[in-house]
């Protein structure tokens, strides 16, 4: 067995140290992201937890979506995300024309897909002013973002999945 030269030994040490440093940094980054994402952590790591949102600071995803929906005139709305799937639920202030329905689902889908840039799918649920469920429209979030960039409602309609939501006791 040949003995390693000092230079080769030094190179090995640098390589091992670099690998360990990268691994440590990766683990540290994962732990920070885990804590910032709301994962349970020991008391000693509580300082990593996200602070309460600053009311005058930039809006998070949910607040961005809700502020956009308010600007469109939706008084009541709910938005949430889980595993890359965003659900936007809106109560339409009035449902007196088909155009109101179509533009409502466009607005809800776009607000959800754009406010959550990492979302994979987005679902809009339209309710009547008295909270009667009416319609659900789902689409791939990438398609919604692409259609929004081109302002192309026709392509969104082509790929959207629609479902009536007749609820027992809520039908005409």
């Amino acid at each position: 067995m040949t003995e390693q030269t000092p230079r080769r030994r030094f190179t090995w040490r640098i390589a091992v140290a670099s690998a360990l440093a990268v691994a440590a940094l990766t683990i540290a980054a994962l732990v920070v992201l885990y804590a910032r994402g709301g994962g349970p952590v020991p008391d000693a790591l509580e300082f990593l937890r996200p602070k309460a949102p600053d009311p005058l600071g930039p809006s998070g995803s949910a607040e961005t979506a809700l502020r956009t929906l308010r600007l469109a005139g939706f008084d009541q709305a709910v938005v949430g995300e889980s595993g890359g799937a965003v659900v936007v639920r809106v109560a339409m202030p009035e449902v007196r024309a088909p155009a109101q329905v179509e533009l409502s689902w466009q607005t809800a889908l776009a607000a959800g897909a754009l406010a959550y840039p990492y979302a994979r799918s987005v679902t809009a649920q339209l309710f009547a002013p008295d909270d009667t469920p009416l319609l659900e429209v789902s689409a791939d979030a990438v398609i919604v973002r692409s259609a929004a960039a081109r302002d192309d409602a026709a392509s969104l309609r082509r790929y959207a999945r629609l479902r009536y939501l007749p609820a027992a006791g809520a039908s005409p």
Partner: protein
Amino acid sequence: MSARLIALACALALVAPVSPASAAAADARGPYDHVWQAEGMFSGERGETRRLAGTDEMSLRLEGGSFIGHVAYADVLGTRGPDGAASAQSASIEITLAGTPADGGGAAAGSFSGQATLVSHALASLDELRGVPASPDGSSVVYEVSGHWGARLSGGIADGELLYERATPLWQESPTAERKGAEWFNRLSAEPGGAAQRFRVEVSGLDAAGKAQTVAGGAGRARGFFGYVARGLAGQPGVPAAPVPLALAKSARALKDAAPPGAAKLPADSVAVDVDVPGAYLDAKNRAAGLLATTGPTGDAGKRLTLAWAPARAAAVPLPDPATAAQDLVRQLRDQDVPGSADLARDVEAALRSGAADPALLQAWQAVATAVRQAVAGSVLGATQAEVDAVRSVVVPRTGPYAAAVLVSLGSRAVPPPAFDVRGMTPDRSLDSSGSAPTGFPGIVLARAGGTTSGGPGTLTYTTAAGRTTIAPDVWLAYERADGTIFWLAGSEGAVALQDGTLRGAGFTLPRAYLDDASYVGRILAVFDLR
């Protein structure tokens, strides 16, 4: 919540089932079993009590590892003392519970807060008790109440107790009205502060064993390590914690709680307007960012959104004839191959046969069916994208009247008094309005949502968690806040003020009025729909 308080609440839950008095009372009452101190004080030889039951609603659910609950309770209690003197108290309590699993998921504990109103009435005898709910007489005091709760979980049922620890008077109709302490809301006991109230309610969101999964052992695992990492990467969806006006929260909660069959479920940490975050805060932040004015959305993005929505705003049509509309709707639905269309067609036909078709709902379903069948509008996708970009990128100023208005909407008092106290604002006598003349904003509200007195000023009746209140000021005095918001004080000594709460969005406009606490305008007491 500190460990000491969790332990206190757990202890309450553990001792709850052995209280025989409360167990007996629970049989005759609803999920929230409120027993007044007076019921223990005036009984047998010491007098008599009679109670008229009112609202008794309670819900409790586990969502995202936390408990969220709500209690809405109202009753009228008549008492006759040993000297024969009778009186009555009408009470209304509305509180929100928040908590976490405890004791390995077999218990729950947390805190609660909300509002309660007590109205005292004079009675000649207890036989007059039935007339109390309709009586406009009485002296009312509104309290902000809070405390802690704890419950044992078994078979999907939470069996627990709730102890009022603070009752701070917020407003009182008369300076002489008697103020009660927190113990008045608890049961009679030899212990200082009284004994806890009982509740027994079905809990949703528990696991198959009827237990609450703890964050570390259940809900935490459900998201997984990389689930939290991904969430940390995407950023918290959180919104600032804020009190939501009770008048708004109740209707907004119905939208969040709805679970239509076949529809995608809302994620556990969904955020609802007027449940988790006040809509007034979202509007105030949009105004502070320069994206919203009294005329509607502003800026290039706002104008583009308004323009894109304009045809739909103009396209609203009158209500259809129910029979014709139903037949047309069924025809449309039969031609479509869309999930749910066959079920809906069946429902419409059944409603048509029974003659119970609601024209407004039929019109809504007709509009939906037409929009599903074919494209009927242009695109608002690009305009919505521009608005999302503006919302995300425009920085809100950290100081000044608009920033103060944002903080006031969240209930913060860390702002100059003129931002939240109407009397601290600048009077604008040119906008003052007589109590009887239908001019100005108060006149519009009185005409749409108010009543009249014979030859006197118009009346405005509103219902809060505190009960029904009627006001009839001779004059509505106008005050302007530094951000341009106008409040009309109900009389020179008024305790409430009107504000134009109209939501002027690009697609829809919702004309409405807010009735605010005049000394704390972030607290909306009532909302009047002016459509």
